């Protein structure tokens, strides 16, 4: 335990402390430790893991809806594409940039950019549709220099370089954990085929032959998204290792 005592300042000490305060001000007016980024004309370098605007790659998307489910702000809502699959749209009027969606995207279809300085003149524009998230957007930039914060053992330094930072980053794909949906209790299957309707990758198929429905899960096609597991009315599907 450490006891803290408050400073008792005698007259002499007061003078010393006054002098110290004035000295700091005088010193700083000559050699200031300025730490300012001249923003519109310069840009601060953000790390590659910076959580900014989202970009989307429909080829990698398995339409698992997890981005929509995990979004705490309900900013991601799914929209049907011409190929009848559902892809995410982002409403930046709600997005809180927590990137739970990116961390939930097992296919790596969502990725981050370093865009974060945007002003909208109308709230309606803040809804970004799927088709707008595929290609890199353009933002109004006035920056000519890049500033990087460097902290060494002495102090913070601003390293300025005359380059224009790219705002788009290459990201490493997530660890692949191959999962496949399996029926753990075929006897309890109702034959309702909701799983088949649910499956956006078309891995689950059914054939009705007279009084028998033959259900089959294509292990290769199954993306392990878990939608069928979630929706199965009898809860007899499970995700297991491939």
């Amino acid at each position, binding site marked *: 335990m450490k006891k803290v005592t*408050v400073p008792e300042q005698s007259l002499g000490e007061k003078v010393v*402390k006054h002098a110290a305060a004035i000295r700091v001000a005088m010193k700083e007016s000559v050699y200031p430790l300025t730490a300012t980024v001249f923003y519109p004309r310069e840009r601060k370098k953000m790390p590659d893991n910076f959580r900014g605007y989202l970009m989307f790659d429909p080829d990698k998307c398995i339409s698992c*809806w997890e981005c929509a489910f995990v979004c*705490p702000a*309900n900013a991601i809502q799914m929209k049907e594409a011409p190929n009848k699959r559902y892809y995410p749209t982002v409403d*930046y009027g709600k*997005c809180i940039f927590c990137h739970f969606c990116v961390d939930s995207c097992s296919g790596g279809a969502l990725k981050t950019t370093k865009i974060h300085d945007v002003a909208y003149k109308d709230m309606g524009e803040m809804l970004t549709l799927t088709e707008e998230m595929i290609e890199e*957007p353009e933002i109004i930039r006035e920056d000519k220099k890049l500033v990087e*914060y460097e902290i060494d053992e002495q102090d913070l330094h601003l390293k300025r370089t005359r380059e224009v930072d790219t705002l788009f980053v290459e990201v490493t794909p997530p660890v692949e954990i191959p999962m496949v949906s399996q029926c753990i209790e075929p006897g309890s299957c109702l034959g309702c085929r909701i799983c088949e309707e*649910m499956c956006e990758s078309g891995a689950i198929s059914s054939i009705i032959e007279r009084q028998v429905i033959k259900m089959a899960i294509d292990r290769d096609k199954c993306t392990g998204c878990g939608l069928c597991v979630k929706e199965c009315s009898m809860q007899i599907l499970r995700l297991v290792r491939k």
Partner: protein
Amino acid sequence: MEGDDKDRNIRILHSGVLTPLRRWGTKWSLWPCHFVTSCCGVELAHAFACGFDGERLGTLNMGISRQANFIIVEGTITRKMARALRIVWEQMPDPKFVNVIGACGQRGGIFWNSYNITRPSEIVPVDFFIPGCPITPEGLLRGVRAVQEKIEGRDRTTIKFKTAALPSEEGKENRIPTTAKIFAPTPAIRVDVPKEVDWDFGREMVKNLKAQLGDVYKSITITDKNRIAIKTTPENLVKVARKLSDTMGIDHAKNVNVIDVPHERKFIVEYMVSSYREELMPVIITIFTEIGREAEPVLSSLTALWESGDYSEREMHDFFGIRFEGNEGMNRKFLLAPETETPLRKDFKLEEERYVLEDGTPFAPAIELPSDLKMPLSEGLLEEAEKSDDFVVLIGPHHTGSGHLRWIMRMKGDVIVDVIPDPGYVHRSMEKLAENRLYIQNIPLFERANISDPINMNLGYVRAIEKALGIEVPERAKYIRTMMAELSRMGAFFYDSGIFSLFTGHSTGFMYVWAIREMILEAIVRMTGSRCTPSFIIPGGIRRDISDDVLNMTSNFTSAVNKRLQKFEDIFIYNPVFVARAKGVGVLTREEAIRYGIVGPFLRASGVDYDIRKVEPYEVYDKLDWEVTTGDAGDCLGRYMGRYEEIKQSLRILKQAVDALKEMPRGDVISEEVLGEYKEASKDIKGHLFHAYGNLVLPRGEWTSVIEAGRGTLLYSILSDGESNVPYRVRVVTPCWMNLRGIIEASKGERVADFWTIYGSFGYFPPEADR
């Protein structure tokens, strides 16, 4: 409302004589009337502090609406704040501009279905919206530039999307899935689920309690280590409390909580109490009772015994409509909501999430806006003050020195007679929202209670979950969490120092600490990718490991900060004027501090050696070498110096943690227990967050975690029914909410200007208090 035309100001600017001069002058002289309404204010401060210095653009922050011509609405506008926004806008001279920053003020952000937030665009005409939660300083300055361009005549959105073609090959028709949330039917709600723990002291204590309480209790259960629950009847509640207070020296209430169980027609009212006596420090005793679920049930208040529960009781009155007999504050002042609304009752439903984009549907519920601009005072206050010859001043909610709450100050000459707080201007209904979200979705939610100390907010919640699940976190993750928590604690301290120096009129002090904060945020952004709201700690560990570069940087930070800190010390802390202002002001003695429920460093400054990091160590605090700082002065300077000393200890902890991390081999950072099938993701959760956590269900019972956040004891109490993947009730008691009482009591009898010293010394952060 009338005159709410977005382009009216531009028309004014472009008409009349000397138009080019008017335009040019206005363009370069946008003085924002900083409408600090919520947490985006932290980033606004960064934009105008030395890191980005918004003054470069000619935007000088001006606290006074008459002289400003630009409102930056910083986030949430609650129902209560809506009037203030309109008033400020009406007060400003034409031409005036409004920017809304942060998702809360647009479509609600994470609070989109809250019962208490409105959309500023429906209250005042808004020129630009800047997305983010919070926005980055760059975003804010981009907004300023956008307004400047608009004045020049270029009104544009600063991002252009390119439309790409979506895959169009024919696919099969798909079914739309249902919600991922699972609500158990008629859940079994029990506060005192017994648990077998290795805790002899507790068993002994239960024995003693049973002997002492005699026949006034119904049951006494050990619910977890250091947690005891006592059930009693409403009639015997006061008796139990009195016995505990008299015989055991239980001296403060940490929490007052109400749980609504509509299907069992009852409310469970619980008091979490504890003592600052050495041996009882870690123990939290929950006294609870059940009362009938009527329109306005009555229960006798325990404020006579534990005044620290006072404000929480008032809050519960607002939220549940329970009247605590004996508490003076039963006047529904918190929400400024319709009198009959009791939002935390279960039958008060919120808007449901939509997972499919539908055209033409509103995104957030429409909330009825207040129709007049009156901000009511409690009845008879003015008349009474006039009779006793007191002068009443209303400070806030929009005032340079008020923060986002209103203070009703009664003074006699230059001496404060009474300060009555009117909180709730940033009440964003977190507790209600948490009952409707997945456990994992609540992580960002609670973090937003206080984005100047986000990691501790995050850690407390996650620790409650881990406690419930009994997960052991990997060593490396523990160290990283400790490191981040200390960074966050420093961030909170420097935030408060900045505000404190501003409150005493010292803008340089503000700038200096904000430069240090800029370094802290740089470290956090490199670790997590977000400056203020990392949401980085998840049950079982952290989202991913951090790189060596960042570790080196953090290690450098511990020594680099000294240079700037030394200057700050010279110009602010030991500045004789500051010492004169803070010394001997707002003294709270040990007894007073305990009685009023002060927590954290402010309590320690009054001489109570209570730090949860030592009392009930979590993460790796018990493995590191550091000391708790206490003081005896109990005045503003003592509180501040105590915290300053604590930050030096934090630097020590940080240094040790970083060094340990550098030595440590890389390994798992998420516990495999919680990941289950997805254990390959134990190094980086990327790609599997929802799989692994979407269906997280806690065991039945109430799980209470306390941690030492930047401003004091932070208590999370999660009540789970054991079946739903959403919590049944989450109660969070933030340190600022507890400290509110201290500000009032310390202010009484001091001089008017001292109020701001006291206010600043307590580091009050309204969003944290209001939740």
